[in-house]
């Protein structure tokens, strides 16, 4: 990155920062992304302690107050208020809770389901493999987001429904990739020895195959965390995700549309920035883990 010093015009300053960030990604541990994720997790856990106001109750007299540093803003509402006079900062803090809970749980459920099916499909082979893979194919024929919106519209909005839907939509990728890995693992000597030693199929899958695909599953999970968070925000934005008045970043963006034409920028810019920071961090961490844990997945 020494070369960037030569381009000392103003534009280069921002780009070399981007360059540094990108270099960061390939070289060492992603400190800043991990720090951001940890912060969001902590904020989500201690939301009720940190948040200055109740996120679901507003004062109608305080509608559309701008952030504190703008004319008309007050220190009481650091990041302003929304169309119902609710504190934006408090809603962002509680919104982190929804993103974290939905994001992590859905990824874990999808991972458990996909990994299990992938191992069973790959190890048992024959008709079991055929059935599981044909279902996976059919599932994959729809764009995940369209499928998720469709399912969400059918079962109705709630946090637990969103988790189930996202898990039901996102397991296919795990199943596909893990099955592929299992196909080669099962031909290895230690698996053949286990068969000769008289281990049951169940024991082989659990004790010999599973430990060898866990890394892949973790990498896939981290890479999917961002996608799942965006999917949740999208569903909430469209009104088929987290039901109001619960604070969720996607829902805040949908509400923010009401003040957008009047130029109330903070209602659109702030929740979206939170989503972007969280997703970017998850992607950076996932990229790093991919290179560290699973060299075979580098081309993904």
């Amino acid at each position, binding site marked *: *990155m020494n*070369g*960037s010093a030569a*381009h000392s015009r103003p534009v*280069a300053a921002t*780009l*070399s920062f*981007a*360059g*540094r*960030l*990108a*270099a960061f*990604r390939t070289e060492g541990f992603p400190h800043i992304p991990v720090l951001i994720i940890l912060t969001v997790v902590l904020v989500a856990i201690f939301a009720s302690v940190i948040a200055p106001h109740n996120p679901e109750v507003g004062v109608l007299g305080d509608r559309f107050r701008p952030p504190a540093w703008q004319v008309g803003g007050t220190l009481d509402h650091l990041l302003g208020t929304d169309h119902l006079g609710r504190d934006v900062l408090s809603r962002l803090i509680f919104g982190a809770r929804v993103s974290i809970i939905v994001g992590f749980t859905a990824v874990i459920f999808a991972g458990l389901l996909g990994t299990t099916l992938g191992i069973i499909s790959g190890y048992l082979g024959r008709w079991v493999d055929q059935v599981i893979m*044909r*279902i996976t*194919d*059919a599932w994959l*024929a*729809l*764009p995940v*987001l*369209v*499928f998720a*919106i*469709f*399912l969400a*519209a*059918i*079962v109705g909005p709630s946090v637990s429904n969103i988790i189930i839907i996202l898990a039901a939509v996102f397991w296919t990728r795990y199943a596909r990739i893990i099955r592929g890995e299992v196909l080669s693992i099962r031909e290895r000597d230690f698996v053949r020895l286990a068969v000769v030693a008289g281990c049951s199929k169940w024991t082989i899958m659990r004790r010999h195959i599973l430990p060898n695909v866990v890394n892949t599953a973790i990498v896939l999970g981290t890479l999917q965390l*961002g996608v799942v968070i*965006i999917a949740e*925000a*999208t569903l909430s*934005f*469209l*009104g*088929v995700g987290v039901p109001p008045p619960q604070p969720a970043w*996607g829902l805040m*963006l949908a509400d*923010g*549309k009401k003040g*957008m*034409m*009047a*130029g109330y*920028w903070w209602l*659109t*810019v702030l929740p*979206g920035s939170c*989503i*972007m920071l969280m*997703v*970017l961090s998850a*992607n*950076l961490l996932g990229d790093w883990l991919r290179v560290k844990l699973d060299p075979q997945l580098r081309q993904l």
Partner: protein
Amino acid sequence: MKRFVLKRIGLALLSLFLLSLTIFFLIRITGDPAVLLAEPGASKADLDAIRTQFGLDRPLWVQYWSFITHALRGDFGQSFYYRTDVFELYMSRLPASLLLAAAAMAFSLLLGIPTGIIAAVRVNKWWDSAGKMFALLGLSMPSFWVGLIMILFFSVYLGWLPSSGSGTILHLVMPSIALGWVFAAYNMRLTRSSMLEVLGSEYVKLARLKGLPEALVIGKHAFKNALIPVITLAGINLVIMVNTAIVVETVFAWPGVGRLLFEGISFRDFPVVQANILMAGTMIVVTNLLVDILYAFIDPRIRFER
């Protein structure tokens, strides 16, 4: 080759069958559509009349059979909300979606290919890093948020572009950027890696050895070959764009099939939802099938894979 093609067609048909089955039953086990069709407080007799009118009183498998045989003839029934033929409704919205997808594709290629080439030519310089960062940002921003930010900036503050609707070229600008943004990031990554591969090949080395100017080596010899995978994928991406534009179409009130799906879901207009999802699945399965067969023609190794 013939066996390979037949097998792929069979698998595609099986996928479509499973998909139609899933969609059909999911819609029907989750609620009584007759209740949604009637005025609030309708009598039981009214509900029964509606059930008979739309065939909702028959056993599920009879309904499925009639649904699938009609669907094969392009007959997806009547929209509950618009009271018109669903297939015609879908077809009337499709051109708008195709226009949006084509514009978004043009944008994603115009942005993705040059940046990808520059990143590959200046590999590991700051241009490359900036490009990587841009691709990563593209993948980290929800498309609807990109749309909202653009509305805020270009419509509300600057007043340059209309915030919603359709009709003029100006209406097309923001939706196509919002939709094409993520694909631009994909195209950039793909162009970069494909270009790197080509630049390392023998004929490029030879061109350089001959003493050709670098601009000619890249522009004439490397560029064309590096673009093959990008252009191939553009075909699939176009189909995916048409079918994932729901969020962008909703944000910008663009009258395409995505918005139709959203309306169908909001009004619980299930013939519309059903037809829309099924058309999306069919388009994607068929495109994938065509690409698979095309690849098998080009690359014989694929044909002999298990």
